[in-house]
């Protein structure tokens, strides 16, 4: 059991989902415990694998399905799961978020998608399966299949939402398919030149045959890169994201928003570092010169669009787009600290986005709207929810001791080392935008002032609301506890960031990355 822990990560949710589909036909109530249990089992597998990875000398666990082990067969004959520290860290994020959201899901799923609980949980668990698989797989084509697993479940989960969700999902389907297909094409280009699909194998062939100058490989890099950028909603390709996440059911957006974009950034990091290799990606392509400027444009546009929103979920959706810019920038400023920042930001952004979307879900449930106009007085009505929500918010701004501060610190340090001033300036700019976003929200909730600046109450803290509207009325515990748990995670990840960063440093130490002057 122990040596197969990495397989159990996927087996638990896979069987859980089928169990939901079959058993759920008879008894809908059974789906929720199945989902929570399989997530817990999966998380156990993840933690066990992390232990193995840390314990192993090379800091990675290679697991080849079907018994096509490396001692008897060439690499790439079977499909390999290749868990290095980075992969297993992101997997743990996926599983952790999945567990928290699955606990959270009980009531919203019942209320928002009545009679569809078995379907919902089936897709939910398969979504986790796909995302966790993406993080672990060591096979370029298997990655495509898993991306599609995650994407298709995502389409289904989103389309269960409001009426508009269908149209939004359709856009997502088209863009997502373009992205995945471009990735597939890129893998084909890699295959035509290297003759293998195994990530390690590809890297070995690139180095051995000196393929860095091959135009096919260059185009393959572009295709894979653009495919992933579309999937992660990088700025010019972000069109699918806001509508999809806004109109999705609460649980769906809480699950997808923290994970999908982040996992795709992980894929980019993996492609850049492990598959194509540092020399190829950074030295022999133009991406290092071009991407930081695209990132600047992306962050500015996303931040400005977030400013224009008057609805929490939509605002958060644009924030995600901006955050994607952070992380992509952290990779392409090309240095050690930038990558630490990028990887750590993947982790912390997942935590804080989870926090925010769980909070938004609770607000929607209790206040019946997430539009800014309907939020006044929520601090007294649901103080715990608001605490959780704004811990996430402060983390996005980057206030210590939340994890957002530390990731931002590393990103800034990275920009400093690479002397990418434009990236640093834009980080500052978007930080200020986020300050405005969240404190404007606090103002709207806390103050008895309308947006245009009129006093609404009689003064002395009167919010112009009735007693019932400000009375203490928290959401159900099954939703509140996951939110507070997520908020705690945001703080804990911040406080113990050094431990995580140490792990990331172990991972990065095998790559030859510039560390800056005097390091």
């Amino acid at each position, binding site marked *: 059991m122990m040596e197969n822990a990495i397989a159990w990560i996927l087996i638990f949710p896979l069987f859980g989902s089928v169990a939901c589909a079959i058993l759920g036909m008879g008894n809908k109530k059974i789906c929720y415990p199945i989902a929570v249990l399989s997530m817990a089992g999966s998380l156990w597998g993840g933690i066990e694998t992390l232990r193995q990875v840390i314990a192993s000398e090379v800091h990675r666990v290679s697991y080849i399905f079907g018994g096509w082990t490396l001692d008897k067969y060439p690499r790439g004959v079977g499909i390999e799961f290749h868990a290095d520290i980075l992969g297993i860290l992101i997997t743990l994020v996926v599983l952790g978020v999945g567990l928290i959201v699955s606990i959270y899901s009980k009531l919203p799923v019942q209320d928002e998608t009545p009679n569809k609980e078995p379907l919902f949980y089936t897709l939910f668990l398969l979504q986790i399966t796909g995302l966790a698989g993406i993080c672990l797989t060591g096979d370029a*084509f298997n990655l*495509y*299949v898993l991306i*599609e697993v995650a994407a*298709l479940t995502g*389409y*289904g989960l989103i*389309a269960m939402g409001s*009426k*508009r969700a*269908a*149209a939004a*999902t*359709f856009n997502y*389907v*088209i863009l997502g*398919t*373009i992205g995945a*297909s471009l990735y*597939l*094409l890129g893998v*084909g280009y890699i*295959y*035509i030149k290297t003759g293998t*699909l195994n990530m390690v194998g590809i890297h070995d062939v690139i180095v051995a045959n000196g393929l860095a100058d091959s135009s096919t490989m260059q185009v393959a890099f572009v295709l894979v890169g653009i495919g992933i950028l579309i999937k992660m909603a990088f700025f010019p390709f972000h069109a699918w994201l806001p509508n999809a996440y806004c109109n999705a059911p609460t649980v769906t957006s809480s699950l997808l928003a923290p994970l999908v974009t982040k996992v795709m950034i992980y894929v980019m990091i993996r492609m850049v570092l492990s598959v194509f290799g540092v020399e190829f990606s950074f030295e022999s392509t133009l991406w290092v010169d071009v991407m930081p400027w695209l990132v600047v444009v992306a962050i500015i546009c996303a931040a400005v*669009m977030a400013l*224009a*929103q008057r609805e929490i979920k939509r605002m958060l959706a644009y924030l995600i787009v901006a955050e994607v810019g952070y992380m992509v920038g952290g990779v392409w400023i090309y240095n050690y600290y930038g990558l630490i920042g990028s990887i750590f930001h993947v982790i912390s952004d997942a935590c804080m986005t989870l926090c925010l979307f769980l909070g938004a879900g609770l607000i929607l449930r209790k206040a*019946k*709207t997430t*539009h800014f*106009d*309907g939020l*006044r007085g929520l601090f007294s009505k649901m103080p715990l929810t608001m605490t959780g929500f704004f811990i996430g918010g402060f983390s996005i701004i980057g206030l210590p001791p939340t994890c957002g501060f530390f990731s931002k610190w590393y990103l800034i340090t990275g920009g400093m080392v690479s002397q990418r001033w434009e990236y640093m300036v834009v980080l500052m700019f978007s930080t200020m935008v986020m300050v405005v976003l969240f404190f404007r929200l606090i103002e709207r909730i806390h103050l008895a002032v*309308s*947006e*245009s*600046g*009129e006093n*609404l109450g*009689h003064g002395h803290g009167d919010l*112009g*609301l*009735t007693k019932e*509207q400000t009375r203490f009325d928290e959401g159900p515990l099954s939703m509140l506890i996951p939110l507070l748990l997520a908020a705690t995670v945001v703080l804990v990840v911040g406080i113990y960031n050094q431990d995580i960063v140490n792990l990331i440093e172990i991972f990065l130490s095998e790559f030859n990355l510039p560390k800056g002057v005097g390091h």
Partner: protein
Amino acid sequence: MFEDGTIINELFIERLNYFIYVILLLIGLHGMIAKNNLIKKLIGMSIFQTAIILFYVSVGVKEGATIPIYLPEHDPHGSHASHGDENGTEEAVHGPVVLESGLVKGYANPLPHVLMLTAIVVGVATLGLALALCLRIYQGYGTIEEDEILAKIERQEMRLKPSIIVKSADSPKPKTSNSENSAPKPKVSSSPSTKRSKARPKAKAKTASTATKAKTSQAKSSSPKPKPAVSKSTTTGTKKSPAKPKTTASKTAGKSTTKAKPKPRAKPKAKPTTRTKATSTAKKATASKPKPRTPKK
């Protein structure tokens, strides 16, 4: 003309498949991006995926090779003609052997075929799901033309918008009858606008909307005030100064950036009181709309 090294030779003779797949792929991509009809987009998607399949299969081709199924003489169980596999001991005697390396070139590369089997299945799954979405969209909006869907969504949002404001505005003082009377007003006045916004360009509607916007923002700002003596349609209501709502309205109009939410005044003749009527006018508008546009195509 076709000497070695010329581009024509390179592209059209030796790599013809790769050239054709690019063309197919571009057709598909263009269809996905540019077509207005959702089904046509899906057709584009299928062409796109098929092009990729063609590419992969081309990669697997080997000159002079046969399909990747062992010929009878290489069959792991031996020739079917001479040996039946009636007993298990046969294998020990006649066990499977590794194919000699010289024979490998006789079989096509099986891997791309396997990959494409997977890709086909994924394509089918995506297509099925997308068709279901199309059905759902058609149920919701009665059309599968993208621009019409967008227009309808915009209109719905606009209809939704005042109701949110009203909700939050009249919720603090639900008792005062005045604010209740005034509250539904913007909702009603906005419903005929469905027709208007359809008929005229967006920018125009935006400018025309300022007046009603003043009204709605007034409703928003004034109704929760302690003094219930706020009457909606006139500017006499607010105690502070009658000019105030106007200024705020212009401010909000300036601020509204992403989506124009046009709320033109109600036309005097068209004054639908119920929602159903409004939707019927909306339907009429959409029904009439495609007509002038189709001949252009």
